[in-house]
């Protein structure tokens, strides 16, 4: 990857066909700037932490435990968590276990479509170090090479109780202002893009999905 290419100007979008190129933005994403007044930022973070909307995208087998989590027995709604069907309304992306290369492409598009502030939580062992599918030709081993991750929950499957523990931990992190994955993504944009394009061989989407 030519690192300079991004740094110097608009996104190349060179995976797109000539006629599609006009349809997508080539502007670089910008990092989030905290409010200059610390108290305000703190308050905003508190608000954010108490309204975590999950993107309903079951990327892997971890999705199976999201059903109990979001229904009567474990009832994550009481923690300000709810499922949203579209990335535009969501703030938390749950990577449900292993991600195949084909799914990674959709994950990237969905993630980039999410409005900030946004957070990524990885479920299970597979996004940490390959897990069960450490030798599979079609699943990623280290998810943090492709998208910034704010929290890992190990287990196979992590139970709904642990997911709730994860939500609490994420809240804590957000309140402390440390959940800065989205900014890391933008600040290291070239590195992430290079990694993504190294595994996604038929890159036919814009370099950033506004």
């Amino acid at each position: 990857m030519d690192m300079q290419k991004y740094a110097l100007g608009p996104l190349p979008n060179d995976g797109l066909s000539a006629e599609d190129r006009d349809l997508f933005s080539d502007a670089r994403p910008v990092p989030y700037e905290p409010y200059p007044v610390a108290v305000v930022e703190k308050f905003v973070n508190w608000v954010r932490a108490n309204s975590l909307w999950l993107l309903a995208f079951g990327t892997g087998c971890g999705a199976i435990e999201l059903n109990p989590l979001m229904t009567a027995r474990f009832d994550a709604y009481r923690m300000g968590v709810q499922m949203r069907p579209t990335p535009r309304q969501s703030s938390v992306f749950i990577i449900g276990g292993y991600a195949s290369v084909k799914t990674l492409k959709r994950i990237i598009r969905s993630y980039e479509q999410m409005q900030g502030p946004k957070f990524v939580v990885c479920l299970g062992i597979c996004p940490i170090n390959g897990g069960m599918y450490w030798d599979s030709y079609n699943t990623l081993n280290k998810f943090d090479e492709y998208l910034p991750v704010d929290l890992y929950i190990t287990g196979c499957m992590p139970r709904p109780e642990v997911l709730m523990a994860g939500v609490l931990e994420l809240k804590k992190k957000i309140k402390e202002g440390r959940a800065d994955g989205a900014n890391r993504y933008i600040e290291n944009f070239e590195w992430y893009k290079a990694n993504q394009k190294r595994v996604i061989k038929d890159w036919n989407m814009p370099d950033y999905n506004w």
Partner: protein
Amino acid sequence: MSLKDLISPFYVWQRAFEKPYTQKRPIEDRPGAPRYRGFHMNSEECIGCGTCESICQNHAIDMVPVEGLEQRAGDSGLRPRFDYGRCCWCALCVDICTTRSLHLSNHYAWVTEDPDAFHFTAGTDAMPWNQNSLGYRRDDDYHLLVHDRVEMQALSAEESVAGFDEVMRGYTEEEAVLEADRCVECGICVATCPAHMAIPDYIRTVRKGDYEAGLRLLYETNPFSSTCGRICTHRCETVCVMGYQGDPIAIRWLKRAIVDRVPQEKYREILGDEVEENGKTVGVIGAGPGGMSAAYYLRRQGYAVTVYEAQARAGGMLRYGVPSYRLPDNQLDKDLEYIRSLGVEMRFNTQVGRDIPFTQLLDEHDALFLAVGLNQPSALRIAGEEHPRVLSGLRVLDDVASGKDPGVGKRVAVIGGGNVAMDAARVSRRLGAEVDVLYRRRIEDMPADPEEIRESQAEGCTLVPQAIPVEIRNASDSNQVTIVWGEAEMVADDKGGRPRPVLQEDRMHEETYDCIIAAIGQGGQIDFIPAEFRDRIEFKWNKFVPGDYQQTGLEKLFVGGDIANSRADAISAIEDGHHAARGIHRFLSGALDG
């Protein structure tokens, strides 16, 4: 569309009055079930065999060295380290764990922002769940390993005591494969084997039926495989991980299973031993297992080897000290013949010091390996032991091996608890005698192999433990002898050693026998080494204390075998010989300074 269909859904309201399903405090109130497969725990029984690592399909386990572990025999010093970016909590590691030290807790929550943090060594790292008492453990009735040893066909006690036929009949091919199949191939035994034989590898060849490959592996470290396959003290089996929950692998019998299936004529072709003379000569003193082992490995390197042996035949203690029902002559000869076939020169009936001076050997050869063994029976150190009807165990065995009748009579007492004592007792049984074996300590303290003890009992020898001989007297019949012995109580040793027998003066016994066989050990004899050399050699209790590579202060002299180690068994002598051969090779090629 009926009215019922319209109204029916409103039934849902009925549930509004039920108790809610919601768990109030899910994290605190819902610990994992008693059988839950949560995070790993490991107890002190772990010996680091790595079987958990072998079965893990996710490569989630690394065996890592752990600082501060106590060094124990049969403990690799490694412990399993888990990668929770890999583990899927299938608990196969728990099921396969040979010591049952590994198990799972019912703890399941680990959340962190650092993806590199999910590593820990179970049992030694402080983890929040280390005190959990619940969690998955293997059910007692569920096994992934085979715990029972395949028994070997043996002569019945009546059959065996009737003659000198070999008692253990060897495994059939099928039995050998079944027994070999039990091995988990952890390799813990290799360190304990004095010769460090490639045990898991040759067991694998038995399983695969590839006896030629097996033979090659055996000869890498041990040219007495037929012998050791029968009479080895098999220290390896004492640390075998399969022994923690069942029977250890019959490693010794599996070695025998290989050699029994390869005829000696094919050895040369299979082993591919080609000797390229290198023009240097090495003298070996003593044709026992140590000497002949050195001779083999030296010869393989191209040294001209001459072996000096006091007796008329080679084999040393293996021939003169081990009865043929345990080690038939032809099996010993199989090993020895092969070594000799490589061109080792033998000088029998040549006792160094008597027939040829030590200094001459030192001058004639570029290096010397000395393994004369222990052939002086230890004294009982009680009054009357010079009685003519007190025989030494070694002499009895020697006579029997040479085809002479030792004349033990009809009623025999054997004193001692080692293998020589057991052999002397069993030989006496075969010669038709009633045998009592007197031993100072308990039966479980006997240094003899458990098999020998068991078999001698089966053959009708009476073991009398905790019996301390006090005095030997003349009997009324001059062809008999009387022994006075007292019962002993075992007293715990304050310093933490093994319990000590203490004579009970008030419980003395007096018995008369046709002979008494003393077999309480042997000592060495080193008078043949001229005084001027002795100062340069280190001795302790009349035994050599060799340095690295079995070398002595007398640079050209390497020593090994019973006279130079404390274990005093064949396999240690064999390794001494092999190790000395390495040393001599390094010495003569300049890599080892004196």
